[in-house]
């Protein structure tokens, strides 16, 4: 029994069946596929009330919008005199395919797979007696959540819309901002059972073509049952799986997504997931916010520095405290040292235990606050943070200094714009605290070196994860590092994106 469960031999993968349904294109065969499906519907229609001219109509309720099916298919089918005037059913079929019915998308299908998936996508299928071809007319419902404010990436001076669960709405949100016809939207289907449409977006002439090809190839390789959650994409599309650090940058803001495309990145949008991913993801991309481009360059640069400093604080402060108190008391100012000694004298636990328990308590409080409804979550946070915290200090269960150190480290972690990245920092905070508490500053340095080593080994789509700190040495252009320069001075795209067109302004 291992940590992740019992390890057993994994059976070989089932080969994908191609075609999925090797059936004749007949109403009976298709109806057989949807046997025991209560939402499947089938009915026989007469062309212009002529019983000698029958058409079988199929659709899946809920996938089709009733008004569209009635107004654009049923009504002309039964009342259009031009159809009844056709000499035979072949002519009627041609007329329907060429505009006799009023759907924006009319397809002539000759395989069972095509017909079945069109039905699932919200089309109405028309079968003609004795004909091996089927007409499918798009009449899908467009029920979806309306475009709303970005909740997780607010921007005072930015746009107020965010991605929704509908892929086509999301591509339109991007295209409305990026009107260049060079914006390419290539679609792939991922997931054996979910058959989720995934769009790869890039700007031809700017994005590195090999990067776009790599993204498409990785998507092609994803062979899973269902792509329904963000993790299904993030963990399969990246090459490094044994790391806590995120290797993908996501955003719910179409404007930030479009800026990424203009920079030369490749974007991915997935049907059913209200966010977009940008590739490649490098360390600096987790410290940028959409607001960085709307703020003054000086403010944006100062905030950027603050975020990096907070990253170091959240990562190293508890470990540094444990190391200084246990191994290097000379590092601590005398008065603070005396205060720590006085407080520690009544606490029964070791300093390292105190630090680890408080870090753990912080995580528990955070997790409890997240899982509960927001109103109760806030109460839990207040009760846990203030009442229990101060009670623990008064009961001499924990030193006030440890409480302050853990609280500062925890709050500093919240300044990271990417909570995925902050999550990885939290895991490493534990490791570095143990290293500092066990080996002192040497342990902290060792832990830091291991962390940097691990980060330096990682790449995303051929770009070093530590970019711009550890790659393109000496070549990095201004404005793409920690400090942002005034936008008019940032005349080039980031070097590491290897864009075809380096200049981004006149």
């Amino acid at each position, binding site marked *: 029994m291992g940590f992740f469960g019992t390890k057993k031999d994994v059976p070989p993968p089932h080969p994908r069946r191609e075609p999925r349904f090797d059936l004749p294109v007949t109403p009976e065969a298709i109806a057989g596929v949807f046997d025991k499906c209560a939402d499947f519907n089938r009915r026989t229609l007469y062309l212009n009330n002529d019983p000698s001219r029958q058409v079988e109509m199929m659709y899946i309720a809920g996938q089709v919008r009733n008004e569209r099916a009635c107004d654009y298919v049923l009504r002309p089918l039964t009342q259009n005199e031009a159809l009844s005037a056709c000499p035979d059913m072949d002519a009627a079929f041609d007329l329907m395919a060429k505009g006799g019915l009023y759907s924006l998308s009319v397809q002539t299908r000759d395989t069972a797979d095509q017909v079945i998936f069109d039905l699932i996508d919200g089309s109405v299928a028309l079968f003609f007696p004795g004909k091996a071809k089927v007409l499918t007319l798009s009449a899908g419902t467009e029920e979806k959540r309306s475009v709303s404010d970005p909740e997780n990436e607010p921007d005072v001076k930015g746009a107020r819309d965010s991605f929704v669960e509908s892929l086509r709405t999301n591509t339109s949100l991007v295209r409305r901002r990026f009107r260049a016809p060079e914006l390419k939207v290539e679609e792939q289907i991922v997931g054996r059972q979910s058959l989720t449409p995934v769009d790869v977006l890039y700007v031809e002439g700017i994005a590195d073509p090999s990067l776009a090809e790599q993204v498409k190839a990785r998507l092609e390789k994803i062979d899973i049952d269902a792509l329904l959650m963000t993790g299904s994409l993030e963990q399969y599309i990246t090459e490094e799986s044994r790391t806590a650090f995120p290797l993908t940058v996501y955003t719910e803001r179409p404007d930030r997504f479009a800026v990424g495309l203009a920079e030369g990145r490749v974007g991915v949008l997935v049907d059913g997931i209200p966010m977009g991913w940008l590739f490649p993801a490098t360390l600096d991309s987790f410290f940028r916010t959409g607001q960085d481009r709307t703020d003054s360059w000086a403010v944006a640069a100062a905030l950027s520095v603050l975020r990096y400093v907070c990253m170091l604080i959240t990562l190293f402060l508890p470990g540094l405290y444990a*190391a200084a108190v246990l191994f290097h008391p000379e590092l601590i100012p005398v008065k603070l040292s005396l205060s720590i000694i006085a407080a*520690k004298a009544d606490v029964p636990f070791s300093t390292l235990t105190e630090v680890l328990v408080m870090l753990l308590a912080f995580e528990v409080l955070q997790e409890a606050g997240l899982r509960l409804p927001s109103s109760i979550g806030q109460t839990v946070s207040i009760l846990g943070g203030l009442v229990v915290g101060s009670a623990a200090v008064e009961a001499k269960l924990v030193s006030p200094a440890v409480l302050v150190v853990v609280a500062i480290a925890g709050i500093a972690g919240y300044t990271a714009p990417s909570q995925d990245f902050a999550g990885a920092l939290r895991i490493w905070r534990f490791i570095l605290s143990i290293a500092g508490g066990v080996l002192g500053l040497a342990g902290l340095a060792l832990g830091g070196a291991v962390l940097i080593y691990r980060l330096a080994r990682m790449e995303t789509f051929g770009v070093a994860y530590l970019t711009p700190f550890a790659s393109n040495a000496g070549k990095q252009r201004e404005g793409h590092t920690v400090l942002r320069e005034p936008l008019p001075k940032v005349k080039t795209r980031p070097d590491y994106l290897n864009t075809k067109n380096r200049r981004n302004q006149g």
Partner: protein
Amino acid sequence: MRRLAAMVMTLLLLTGCRGREPDELALVRVLGVDGRGPVTLTAVCGGDDQGNGSRGTSTGADFLSALEALPWANEESREELALTSVSYLIVGRDANLEAVLLAVLRDQELAGLSTVWLADQGAAALLRNCEDPAAALALLARQGVKAPTAARALAALWDDGQVELPVLDAGENGMECRGVGSWR
């Protein structure tokens, strides 16, 4: 997995180098020196209104051997002697100031930034009568009494052949400055 196990094992082995909990430290704030052979040291820990005002005395042939004889310096002691926070060095008239200052500056833990004061009646006697010497000396420093650091005092002694030190005496607050005395 093997590498991870090896790392964990290494860390566990290295846990032998255990740190000291803060309450196990005897943080000496004031060090009194009397005599030139034998040398008597009076160490006052904590203080400065922070509690933990434990004291200890030791005698040795010279400054360093007296230092090693302080009660917290032996291995059986629950507390570990920490000299990194010595802020005040009180020297009796009978001490060998040059030897003491040299020893202080050569010691890895004792900081050359600790200030040097003179006790006419002897450092041990002065400290015995004062409840919180660190707080009393800090108060004197805040009141404008200037005491040279160990490094400056030794430099003055070598360059000028004498050094001016504030002279301490027992007073209302445990200690008071009675002026400046010259040490030749």
